[in-house]
């Protein structure tokens, strides 16, 4: 709804002009060219500057069939016509299609679903709609917007339309009323899963009349969360069917490569895609910054956090409102500390620089969001928590400290700056991580490539079994029911063995039998949609009394909350005194120190089953068993990133059954290498290191979602190997080494098969990464730090790649676009006014 074309901006012209000037000033200061003032600029600190030209709006008339009261209400908001994509959405929904809309931030996406939903409710007051948002905050935002519109509709003579959020914050005494009165219930998948579906008889009115299910931010549902959501939607549709309704799905998504496929996978219905935006947008600059090399031999660049601090400072100093995205909670805290130092406020005044991340308590988060909207907060440093559409107003600049990991997330974060008419900028500062270096040196990969695929695996047994329990609790399964592709009757039979369900009915007519839930527990309570295991650790500050200050999911607990770990909250440092693993509690005390900690873990992979490849093939994927353990940690000094100490840890082992892709280097290839045993091992380890990073790039996932391990031949007891960058390497890898890239979630969420299919591209891109790196003998950007991988790692890794896949490497070598494009782009657009790039998916 915020997408109304406003007639004039004259009232705020002076402000716009001032901001434009400030923005130009800052950009000029960043960019090379005649304004060269920085001594560190010469060798390509700025690797790309792109200008996205402003785009004119494309309109369509209001649909003929639209309820006149809704039309009047829209007109009062200054909306006399629609953007073309909004009109198309209305038409397709009217035609009975399930739709998924992918248009950019601020293109009036919400009207694509509000229009058909409100129209349907006005025409049939019994009709009901369910809206799903990935977070409570988004639902609150949307409710405020809907209330504005429904008030206008009521004023135009329409019936009262009940719009209510229903989530964990809804007071108990209001719930009954909401169940009875809400035409539109706004909730999140977690609440739907644990608070609505298990109580469906109380929601009979909704389910009997459920016409639309709206899923906003569809792209957020990938990996574990998406796999869970698919099962929640299976349960939802099962219950709707029980009450005689079959809702239509209306989804909206950020730009990903497969929005339609994702929607179809999640809702298990055919979808139509609407991807042509009719909304206008303002001019925007996109800048890639690569921090300068400070030690060429070791391949060490200036800290990207320091560079991001400098870049953000340029904008903040010019009174522009800035959002800085950091890669992790840790770097969020570090950057917040830096920027607070730079832009210290007078004591007693509201703080201008804030940190924002998951794990902060809700009240603090709401306060920061409001501060951003009001302009009290001038700069915020956030994790991806602010990537989704929480209303923080239109900011001027988005600075990304580190490549966000996916093209989709990068555009999403860039979209946090700039709205329809004003000029804005996005700056990506690359870290020395391999993925970042790959992207920053090959801007075309980013600007021209289509974004990534969102993957889900709803039939992951861990996830599936959980939801079969919930579904059995909600409605008995019949002997002929299905639930996804896995044989649900087999699942039920195992649940029966454990006494969780009972099969009723006459044994002589088994087809009439039903599976009933026979446990006093409430299964949804024990199942979290955000993780495969619902466990988490709470962080308790015992500096003075004892106070809960945060929480961490089970998987990352051991690596972030191990004894002596440094835990940060908004720049304050705490040290973990004890980790109560059984009780899932970490007791921390506030400390004053100049370092943070980084954990080291080991994992061991055992092959269980080969799905494709195997038998001496170079590439294979299949099922594996992984056991991993956090074994130690390093102390890293702030600012300089020096390693200032380490410690050993003895934490419980975590085990899982998952899927993996692996590369087997054949014996002849290894034997033909003219290097020592250790050098060969270093080469393979370095290759794995680089492959892992390229894999996360191709898979649209986080570095933590893919595990790396090494093994040898068909030996099931394969060697232990390191996970993550900071660690020592296995002693020996023998003549038939294997590099395992495994799905880091129990049961897997669907990474291995696509990786296997992209094997050729994986090797070619890995080659690009290693060969394109400026270092002499290997560095953290390609095959790992030289001190840890040995001087020949880079050479051996490249030799192995050539031997394995000469064809695809040659093809990669032949792709001239990558090597030169950065400089070409730079000269073409350094003025900041080059021609718009037609390929940019903006």
């Amino acid at each position, binding site marked *: 709804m915020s997408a109304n074309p406003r007639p004039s901006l004259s009232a705020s012209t002076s402000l716009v002009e001032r901001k434009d000037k400030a923005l130009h000033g800052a950009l000029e200061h960043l960019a090379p060219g005649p304004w060269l003032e920085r001594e560190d600029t010469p060798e390509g600190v700025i690797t790309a500057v792109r200008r996205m030209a402003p785009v004119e709006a494309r309109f369509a008339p209001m649909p003929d069939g639209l309820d006149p009261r809704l039309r009047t209400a829209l007109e009062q908001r200054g909306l006399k016509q629609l953007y073309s994509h909004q009109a198309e959405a209305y038409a397709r929904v009217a035609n009975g299609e399930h739709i998924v809309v992918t248009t950019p931030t601020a293109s009036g996406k919400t009207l694509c679903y509000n229009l058909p939903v409100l129209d349907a409710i006005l025409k049939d007051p019994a009709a009901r709609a369910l809206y799903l948002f990935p977070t409570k905050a988004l639902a609150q935002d949307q409710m405020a917007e809907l209330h504005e519109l429904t008030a206008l509709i009521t004023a135009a003579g329409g019936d009262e339309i009940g719009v209510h959020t229903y989530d964990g914050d809804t007071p108990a005494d209001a719930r009954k009323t909401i169940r009875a009165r809400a035409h539109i219930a706004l909730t999140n998948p977690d609440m739907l899963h644990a608070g609505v579906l*298990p*109580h*469906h*008889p*109380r929601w*009979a009115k909704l389910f009997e009349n459920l016409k639309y299910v709206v899923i906003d931010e569809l792209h957020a549902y990938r990996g574990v969360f998406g796999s869970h959501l698919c099962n929640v939607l299976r349960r939802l549709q099962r219950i709707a069917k029980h009450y005689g309704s079959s809702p239509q799905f209306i989804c909206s998504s950020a730009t990903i490569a497969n929005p339609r496929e994702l929607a179809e996978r999640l809702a298990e219905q055919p979808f139509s895609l609407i991807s042509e935006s009719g909304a206008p947008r303002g001019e925007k600059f996109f800048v890639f910054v690569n921090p300068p090399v400070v030690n060429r031999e070791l391949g060490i660049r200036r800290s990207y956090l320091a560079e991001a601090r400098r870049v953000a400072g340029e904008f903040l100093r010019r009174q522009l409102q800035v959002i800085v995205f950091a890669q992790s909670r840790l770097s969020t805290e570090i950057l917040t500390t830096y920027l607070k130092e730079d832009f210290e406020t007078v004591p007693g005044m509201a703080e201008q620089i804030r940190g924002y991340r998951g794990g902060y308590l809700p009240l603090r988060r709401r306060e920061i969001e409001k501060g951003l909207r009001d302009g009290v907060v001038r700069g915020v440093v956030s994790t991806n928590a602010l990537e989704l559409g929480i209303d923080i107003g239109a900011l001027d600049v988005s600075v990304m400290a580190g490549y966000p990991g996916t093209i989709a997330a990068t555009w999403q974060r860039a979209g946090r700056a700039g709205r329809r008419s004003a000029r804005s900028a996005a700056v990506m500062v690359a870290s020395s991580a391999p993925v970042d270096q790959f992207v920053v040196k090959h801007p075309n990969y980013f600007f021209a490539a289509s974004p990534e695929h969102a993957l889900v695996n709803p039939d992951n*047994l*861990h996830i599936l*079994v959980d939801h079969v329990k919930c579904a*059995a*609790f*909600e*409605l*008995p399964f019949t002997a002929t029911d299905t639930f996804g592709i*896995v*044989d649900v009757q*087999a*699942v039920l*039979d*195992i*649940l*029966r*063995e*454990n*006494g*969780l369900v*009972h*099969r*009723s*009915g*006459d*044994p*002589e007519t*088994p087809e009439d*039998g*039903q599976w*009933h*839930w*026979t*446990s*006093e*527990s*409430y*299964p*949804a*309570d024990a199942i979290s949609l955000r993780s495969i295991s619902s466990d988490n650790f709470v962080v308790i500050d015992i500096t003075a009394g004892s106070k809960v200050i945060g929480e961490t999911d089970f998987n990352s607990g051991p690596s972030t909350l191990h004894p002596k770990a440094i835990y940060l909250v908004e720049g304050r440092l705490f040290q973990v005194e004890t980790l109560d693993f059984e009780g899932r509690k970490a007791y921390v005390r506030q400390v004053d120190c100049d370092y943070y900690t980084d954990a080291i873990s080991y994992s061991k992979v*055992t*092959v*269980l*089953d*080969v799905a494709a490849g195997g038998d001496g093939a170079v590439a294979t994927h299949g*099922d594996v*068993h992984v056991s991993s353990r956090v074994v130690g940690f390093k102390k890293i000094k702030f600012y300089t990133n020096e390693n200032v100490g380490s410690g050993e840890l003895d934490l419980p082992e975590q085990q899982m*059954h998952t899927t993996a892709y692996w590369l087997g280097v054949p014996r002849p290839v290894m034997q033909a290498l003219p290097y020592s045993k250790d050098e060969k091992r270093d080469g393979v380890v370095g290759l794995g290191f680089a492959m892992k990073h390229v894999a996360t790039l191709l898979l649209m996932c986080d570095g933590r979602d893919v595990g790396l391990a090494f093994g040898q031949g*068909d030996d*099931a007891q394969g060697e232990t190997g390191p996970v993550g960058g900071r660690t020592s390497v296995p002693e020996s890898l023998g003549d038939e080494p294997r590099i395992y890239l495994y799905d880091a979630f129990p*049961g897997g969420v669907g990474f291995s098969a696509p990786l296997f299919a992209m094997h050729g591209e994986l090797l070619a891109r890995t080659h690009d990464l290693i060969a394109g790196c400026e270092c002499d003998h290997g560095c953290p950007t390609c095959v790992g730090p030289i001190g840890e991988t040995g001087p020949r790692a880079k050479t051996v890794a490249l030799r192995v790649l050539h031997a394995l896949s000469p064809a695809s490497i040659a093809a990669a070598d032949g792709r001239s676009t990558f090597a030169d494009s950065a400089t070409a782009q730079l000269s073409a657009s350094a003025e900041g006014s080059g021609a718009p790039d037609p390929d940019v998916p903006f």
Partner: protein
Amino acid sequence: MVMKPSLADRLRAVVGGSGVPRVHPDAASPLGTLATVPPSPVVSAAGDAQEVGHDSRRARAERAAAILGGVVDVRADGLCLIVDRTYAADERHGQRRVGDIVDALRQAEDGLESLRRAWPGVGRVVTSTPALDGLCVVDLETTGLAGGAGTQAFLVGCARLDGDGVHVRQFLSPGFEYERAQLAALTEWMGDRTHLLTFNGRTFDLPLLEMRCSFNRVACPWRDLPHLDALHPARRFWREQPALPGVEAEDASCSLGTIERRLAGLHRVGDVPGFEIPARFFQFARDGRAEPLAAVLEHNRLDLLSTLLVAARASMLVVRGPAAADRGHECLGLGRVYERLGETAGAEACFARAAAEGLGVGDAWLRAEALRRLAMLQRRGGRTEAAATSWQALLATRGAPARLRRDAREALAIHQEHRTRNLDAARTLVLDALADQLDGRRRIDAERRLARLDRKLTARPPGALMARFDDEPF
């Protein structure tokens, strides 16, 4: 390479270890020891169907009926097991005669009506007084406590007055698939019932039954009946203040078990613990053996009788007034009930009596709480002097809870400042209050009051002020 496990094995590993305890078949007698079989393997690999064999559902229900002393109601929509039990007047519930309980209830019928008025159900307007003979006491045994669509009320127990005795009818579902039949049988029997009595039914039993009805899409027969949840008056009368040193957690609780011990000296022998009830039903659904359910049915019947007992005693107190209360806490509770009913005079009498008793038995909490409530009633009635006297008495009570002392000081400070205009006395009270631990709002109020009092005081001749200051506790 290790062999990939089969789907079933993988599923077993995923589900692993989450089995629920099973009740041993020998746990039939309520006095028998209850053995739980280790969770794995809880069910034989053979299907439930084999366990049942070729036993027909009907024959199985008949056998259960024989064991539990009931009959099978064969209906168009399935089977329901019905167990009747009549308690004659001379039978005992703990140390009480059943006849005495019924008699008390009949004598105090008006009291029951008053209690219902004190806690009216949401959206239910009671227009006429239903006759006591139309009463239905309801208590459920369920497959879980969390609620939700997967929680069934496998046993619905109902009790009604039957002359000078009590008649209990229990509706037991002989298997998950017969819930609809069970609800239909219940609905039929409920036809002539005019009002409901439960213990904790307002938040648990009745919503759950309503949920079961809407799940089965049958009309809910008790939806609009007037209802008294005896838990509410019970809390007023018999729950001691919690978290006081020396008070056992058990005494502070307001469970039916605690109350029946207090009111009837009932000590249940071989009672089945609540957490075990669902498992006994699951076991019955699997293998058809009804013996372990006998104790569940008995448990349910005792709960029904105790609910009647609670209602009878509470109604009696309301009818007879403070003189009938045998403890100060009961008297305090009665005052609160009268307060809800708007019977101010009765409430005041109760609070005054409770305060006196608190002094007599040396129960500081009781005395202070009774005085606080008395003072508030008096102030509301415009008798500010009387209220001040009560507050003074509260402050003079040794060992009164800090929270109540704060209330008293604040109220007295207001009284001294605005009524008697004794500014110095008011100031002393505020200073006392500030010396105490005060939370945000109260502290701000107290500081404001102090500032205002100081302003007013400085407007007076300095000599007099200084003379008074000598007495201030600096």
